[in-house]
């Protein structure tokens, strides 16, 4: 109706209506820009979650369904540190990291190592370890439920609006994006340039040969699982800055991680970041059109991807 009016009035030459239609068009552009920025800000966290999962499955061959529970642990640890001791969430990243790492490291040293030695081949190990992760999921989630209950928790950190070319978002989201990018970059450099990184890459390519070349394979696999858990913990800490957290939040993020990994390809950090931003954009666009559809779209993309290209966009 308004478009039609505008069209007529343009022809009859009324300048005031041209201005409104320009404003409308500009509003539209700002809205699209808003959606895109929101998607990119979301994508950083998605990417970080996916890097962890892709490390655990790509190298340690553990399809970690309980990945989201480590995210939840990181989120709650940050929340506790902030609300009780007033510690800045960015600093609690450094405090929580080692703890989550140790949990992951010893989980692999005990549980997954004995599964690895008792499995006749890799397929059996993958199946068994995935089921063991289901067990872990229930254990961690229910312990957390006993301690913290099922209510939503949250705190306010850097919750001030930033206006970036018309797109308005909270400052904490920008912080999460920058932190996610920084963590990803540091980890990429670690894999590319250190001796341990080389060992991890070798183990990812061929664990048996890497072992023969003098790589302490069990140590590397446990390290990888630990690093994967750290990534989840970091992501959890970042999530707690912008979103309300809950003890049952884990599975949702695990599913997102799996989709991103399916998008970006297993065992590729760059792929995880591309996949993360892609999914963030898709999620943000779908939410802006029809919010209740976004889970369906996620699962649909996921199923379709697995069917068409299970190796992912950048997969080997």
């Amino acid at each position, binding site marked *: 109706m308004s478009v039609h009016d505008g069209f007529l009035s343009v022809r009859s030459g009324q300048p005031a209506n041209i201005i409104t239609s320009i404003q409308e068009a500009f509003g539209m552009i700002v809205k699209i820009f808003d959606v895109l920025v929101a998607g990119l800000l979301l994508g950083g966290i998605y990417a970080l979650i996916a890097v962890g999962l892709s490390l655990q499955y790509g190298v340690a061959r553990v399809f970690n369904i309980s990945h989201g529970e480590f995210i939840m642990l990181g989120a709650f640890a940050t929340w506790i540190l902030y609300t009780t001791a007033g510690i800045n969430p960015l600093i609690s990243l450094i405090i929580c990291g080692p703890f989550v790492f140790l949990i992951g490291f010893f989980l692999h040293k005990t549980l997954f190592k004995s599964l690895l030695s008792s499995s006749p081949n890799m397929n059996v190990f993958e199946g068994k370890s995935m089921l063991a992760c289901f067990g872990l999921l229930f*254990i961690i989630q229910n312990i957390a439920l006993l301690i913290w209950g099922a209510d939503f928790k949250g705190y306010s950190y850097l919750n001030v609006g930033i206006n970036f070319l018309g797109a308005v978002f909270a400052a904490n989201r920008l912080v999460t994006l920058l932190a996610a990018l920084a963590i990803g970059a540091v980890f990429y450099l670690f894999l590319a340039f250190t001796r341990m990184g080389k060992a991890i890459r070798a183990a990812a390519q061929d664990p048996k040969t890497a072992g023969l070349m003098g790589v302490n394979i069990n140590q590397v696999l446990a390290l990888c699982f630990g690093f994967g858990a750290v990534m989840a913990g970091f992501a959890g800490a970042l999530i707690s800055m912008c979103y309300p957290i809950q003890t049952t939040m884990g599975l949702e993020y695990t599913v997102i991680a799996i989709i991103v990994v399916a998008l970006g390809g297993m065992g590729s950090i760059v792929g995880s970041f591309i996949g993360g931003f892609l999914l963030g954009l898709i999620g943000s666009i779908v939410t802006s059109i029809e919010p209740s559809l976004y889970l369906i779209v996620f699962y649909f993309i996921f199923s379709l991807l697995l069917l068409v290209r299970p190796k992912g966009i950048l997969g080997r």
Partner: protein
Amino acid sequence: MDIAALKTKKNITTGVIMLAILILLAFVPLYAPGYPVILLSSILMYVILTVGWVMFSGPTGYISLAPAAFFGFGIYTTAIIGEAIPFAVVVLIGGAASFCLAMLVGALTLRLRGIYFAVFTFGLLMLIANSVNYYEIHFTGTRGRFVMVKGYDLIYFYMLGIFVLLMIAATVIKHSRYGLALISIGLEEEAAEHCGINVVMVKVMVFAISAFFMGAAGSVMATKWTYIDSGIAFYMLYSFMPVLMALFGGMGQLFGPVIGSAIFTYLEEVLITRFPEVYMLIFGIILVIAILYLPDGLVGLIQKLWKRFSERKHANT
């Protein structure tokens, strides 16, 4: 007495025992009405889901997380067409709907192996659950549906019937050429293909047959709950529980999953009433322990102990 005769004698004995148990089960509503019937119905539900799962996933090693999808299809069949048609037909249609879904899933997922199959079936379950939820809210305007009530005894007899048919089907498949084909697919799929097995056909058919029974069980159980929505019908745990129960009972023999799920359902019932807060925690711990220390399940453990015991007896004499 030669080995063949010995074998038939053993088969006859197990057959007689089975029949006796079956007759005993059939008369439960007479001598123990009320709660035991309800409990046995839910035990039978999990037994059907688990045996159905083992039928396909046991020998092939494909971990399917789709049982909840098939079960939910059955439930929704009853909720949608339940009142108009005789109940037996509804159950058949519920099974057939799941059968068709499984055919479709099977045909789509043939290229996926290992972990991808498990992840895909899980994604599919979530996709179906969310789509149904979306459809109900946006097109029917309600979140859930009411299902007509049938008597607990009727539910029990239907479940018992499905269970018996499932056991017969599972035994027949296991001891037929298809059973051998499934095992060889599990060992080395490519080799199986080269031996002349129609890998695709065997996998899809057995997957679909197992789905039929899950769907039928779903459409019977729907009448027990009276109210269903997508969250209840496609509850994730209906996918995980069969896996856990099969692991717990042991997949080597067909009665392994039966025993595993029977014990587990009873345990669940006790835990839920006594320790509702920690029930899922205990569930997780049992899952991890079963994977770590019971590679052949409870039945495998008993068999191992029995073997050791009988060997000792022989050594002594």
